[in-house]
């Protein structure tokens, strides 16, 4: 039997991104399919977080060249760069923030009910009914149990006064509720102790499973423990210089980026230049 459905794909092609006058991404190519797990590694300042923001459409990040395309199960190609951030969320793209914002006074459950409704009913107009409270609560409760979260969490204000670990788990909870097709997890392990990273890693695996295409941005291999990457990408100087399998992540974790820098001198030079600019920036204002 011939299946008419396509593999849902997020394809990033020759992406150049600037913040102000600084070019941070200098031609990123990356394709990932739903059901795959990718690890994105690279030294600090190589542009990993920028890629996450650019995929979501942060207004401070200007895409100066290249494309981001989402291929649906029906084979339709969507131009992600033309979408508002909320539209990107609605077509199934999710970013777990490295530093999530707090929204004091807004309960996690209310925020998530709104978010979940919008994402699941992409045609919903503003002001229309939200998901039925009872169904939503039930689902939220089940997901929180699965993630071993205190039910009190739902009544707390969004990320307000959360510990680092709580924030990261709240991001995973949101991912679980929104059920994206493609999730980018930006250093979901940063600031967490070993046990918390292990828990996060396990949760991502449980939630994501084969359902999502996951791009894990990380420095360490701990988060990959339960999410063995199908592909590992190395970013240096604003581009992806090498792609390999899980063994590449292990190598980088063990030996660092020296081999990468010497093997890709152009990217390493860009990295050094970007580092220089970065040091100048605070003094400039």
């Amino acid at each position, binding site marked *: 039997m011939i299946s008419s459905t396509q593999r849902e794909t997020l394809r990033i092609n020759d992406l150049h991104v600037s913040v102000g006058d600084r070019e941070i991404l200098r031609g990123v190519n990356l394709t990932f399919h739903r059901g795959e797990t990718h690890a994105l590694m690279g030294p600090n300042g190589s542009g990993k977080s920028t890629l996450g923001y650019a995929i*979501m459409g*942060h*207004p401070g990040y200007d895409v100066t060249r290249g494309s981001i395309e989402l291929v649906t199960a029906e084979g339709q190609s969507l131009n992600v760069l033309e979408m*508002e*951030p*909320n539209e*990107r*969320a*609605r077509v199934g793209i*999710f*970013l777990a*923030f490295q530093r*999530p*914002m*707090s*929204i*004091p*006074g*807004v309960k996690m459950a*209310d*925020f*998530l009910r*709104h*978010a*979940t409704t*919008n*994402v699941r009913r992409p045609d919903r107009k*503003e002001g229309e009914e939200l998901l039925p409270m009872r169904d939503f609560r039930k689902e939220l409760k089940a997901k929180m149990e699965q993630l071993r979260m205190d039910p009190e969490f739902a009544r707390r*204000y*969004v990320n307000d006064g959360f510990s680092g670990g709580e924030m990261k788990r709240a991001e995973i909870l*949101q991912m679980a509720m*929104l059920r994206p097709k493609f999730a980018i997890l930006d250093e979901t392990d940063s600031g967490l102790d070993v046990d918390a990273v292990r828990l996060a890693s396990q949760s991502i695996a449980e939630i994501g499973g084969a359902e999502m295409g996951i791009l894990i941005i990380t420095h360490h291999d701990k988060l990959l423990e339960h999410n063995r990457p199908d592909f590992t990408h190395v970013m240096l100087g604003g581009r992806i210089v090498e792609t390999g399998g899980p063994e590449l992540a292990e190598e980088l974790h063990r030996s660092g980026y020296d081999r990468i820098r010497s093997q890709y001198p152009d990217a390493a030079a860009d990295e050094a230049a970007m580092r220089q600019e970065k040091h100048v920036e605070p003094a400039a204002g």
Partner: protein
Amino acid sequence: MPSIATSTGFTQDSFDAFLAARDEPSWLLEQRRESWAEFQRLGLPSRSEEEWMRTDLRLFHLDRFALPGELPAGTVAPPALLSHGVDLAGHDVSINSRPVTSALDPSLAAQGVVFGSLDRLIAQRADVLRPYLSRRLINPSADKFAALHAAAWSGGSVLYVPRGVVVDRPLHVLSGLSAGGIDLGKTLIILEEGAEATLLSETAGGEGDPALHCGAIEIFVGPGAKLRYVNLQNWGSGVWHFAHQKALVDRDGRLQWTIGALGSRLAQVNQHVALTGIGAEAQVNGVMFTEGKQQLTYNTLQHHQAERCRSDLLYKGALQDRSRVVWRGMIKVDKGAQKTDGYQRNDNLMLSEHARADSIPGLEIEADDVRCTHGATAGRVDDEQIFYARCRGLTRKEAIRMIVAGFFQQVFDRITIDSVRDALGDAIGRRIREYD
């Protein structure tokens, strides 16, 4: 027979005609005449006076208004926000300083509760009302508007709850204005010792042509009495709103006073809470949302006159467009008011770079064993917060609306009446526009 005012301005003839039509006792007429003399003597407040320094009256023309006349036929009350879905014990409606309808649960009337139009009840229940009206809680010489109100107050509402009586359902008051109208309504609330009540009052109407509200609220909370009072100013965009508001809270009395300020073109309000008996407590909540070129000025005073009293004021405002809000807050502690616990705070959220908020807290303390604190903040909606919410599928407008709702949550948490929280929350949500 009174006729519809055809001339404008506040002339002696029009005042004489106003008094002649009212059929009031001589002590009250005397009060009015005295205040009329003050009104004639006083000029409009000038910007050299501290409380009026930031209030721009250049486009206000008092002589375009006249004393309240008869209601034009067919005038209908504007819609109310606070009474929606509430099981009320009574209601009172007035428009342009004229009583329209009122009702009170007969079982409460049988217990001696007096509620309804002050105009109508002053004649019938002068026995209970005279001692309070004679106190002249608002000084008629405070400014020209206070004098005008004292001379010509009309319409308005009264709630009197006798000793020990508990009114367990809310009462509702609506004061309306038609375009170009005038409202000189007074709200008089009296809770005798141990009485309890909840009063929801709101103002509405007055869109378009300049309209004038020159009002007063006078509140007496007796020993051990408990009053929850909500006062929503939701006038239309044509209304100039001038008001003096004062509450006395006696020994162990409890006052929760929530003000909502959404409407009017310009508002200048003096809100004064005096804690006069040992152990009295007042909680003052303010929710403000302004837009367009609205200008709101609130001068608040928490006056501690007795020992061991507590006052806690929290005003929160969100400002859109080119609107402006001024809050000048004072906690005054008299020499004998030891063990005072006073707090005041004003937080503003700026939704536009052209909006402006001024917070001017102040303390004047003569006792030596007190705890008084104050604070003020002004902030903007953070673009990163908006982006975060949008990444979760919310539109920009939904995100801003949610962030603003969150900003008000702290004060909503203090307002224990669901219908009030919902009404304020919805009204604010509807007003929020999209910003770049």
